[in-house]
């Protein structure tokens, strides 16, 4: 599965010019990491169409914005959200992908 993750915004402006980005094909991950990631993706409900992007709070300042894109042979899913609109089921996946992105820096 092809996974793309972007994190931008935030008080610190660290990801202002360039989002914190992570791009991976899960087949290229170590087995343990791959299993954990795929488990979180399944738990998120993204590929089942249970989750949809929602408009953000226009008065929010300094929140993080997130984008996840998932693509395999016969399914695709994309979600954009921020700290206030991220669905509960997606939070673990967001945190895991953020850590993977940092580990690559």
């Amino acid at each position: 599965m092809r996974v793309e993750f972007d994190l931008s915004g935030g008080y610190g402006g660290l990801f202002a010019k360039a989002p914190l980005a992570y791009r991976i094909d899960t087949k290229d991950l170590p087995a343990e990491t791959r299993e954990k990631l795929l488990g979180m993706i399944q738990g998120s409900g993204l590929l089942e169409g249970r989750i949809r992007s929602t408009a953000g709070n226009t008065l929010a300042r300094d929140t993080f914005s997130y984008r996840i894109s998932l693509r395999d042979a016969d399914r695709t899913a994309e979600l954009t959200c921020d700290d206030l609109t991220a669905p509960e089921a997606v939070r673990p996946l967001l945190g895991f992908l953020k850590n993977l992105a940092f580990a690559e820096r």
Partner: protein
Amino acid sequence: MIFHRCDCRYVPDAILENLAKRGEGKTPVSARASLQQANMKRKQRESQARSISMDALMAGVSAPSAGTASREVYDCAHKWEQRGKRVRSEGDPTTADDDVTNAYDFAGIVRDFYLREVNRNSIDNAAMNLILNVHYGTDYMNAFWDGDEMTFGDGDGSIFTSFARSLDVVAHELTHGVTQFTASLEYYSQSGALNEHFSDVFGAAITQDHLRQDAGQADWLVGDEIMGPTLFGEALRSMKMPGTAYDNSLMGKDQQPAHMNDYYTGPNDNQGVHINSGIPNRAFYLVAIDIGTPKALQIWYHALQNLWPKANFSDAVEVIVRSAQILTKNKTVPVGTTQLVRMAFNEVGL
């Protein structure tokens, strides 16, 4: 149920904004007040969007009642939910949680500074209560304002420590609320960079006041108190010299420009609101070094009350210079300040 967002107001924002900009209407404040009211109502509608019907929406929502400028600190217990458990209210004794203590104390310092220095009664100048959420989420390395409350993460322990431990972070986020109820600067491109700029200005001024520092003694750094253990000495932004706050393998290099020659024109970060704020930040530093931070702040606060949602950098320079003239006339700032302000903005290319 299909929900359609309705942006319904009797007087469209565009007309209110022009009235505010031109200082027309009964008073310049009335047009801005109308915009602020509309924004507040929009926020209330957004927050209730999942649970109320379209009929209820069309019936309208009432304006928030005036508070008592009281502090309320909530512990989110590492969940992604605000207002989890209220752990300290105004006047309550100190708890064992340092983040609760810091958030409570710093919010009080910011609130009291606004009242004492610019005669502003809390965020909305109507004694709005100060709602603070600590321990938000897990490894959450951020803090934000969302229209009616502030929220702070604990950091990840590596790059950042707890965001509630920094007075300038609390002041920065609370000032987003002040901007919301004054100029209501829209959060993209130059108006958004100005929005960020005013939050950094008040963050710096309040920190200097609390530490009893003058402009020459201050470090003019933003976020230095929350850097993680391996990043001691680094910071998130430098108002004195944008672009020098950090340079390391973990964070990368500070991307803020100090001059319009390096203005960021890309799409990221809402067209650079945290990037291009460096340019007016340096201008404020230059004015503060000349006339002192307290006097510079009086000019900037006066200007904030006379700006409008789509104001750009050129508009801000014009308004800030005008504010300097007015405050020179009433002897708040010394003669010659208007020229110093122009020079400061010239130095950053504005």
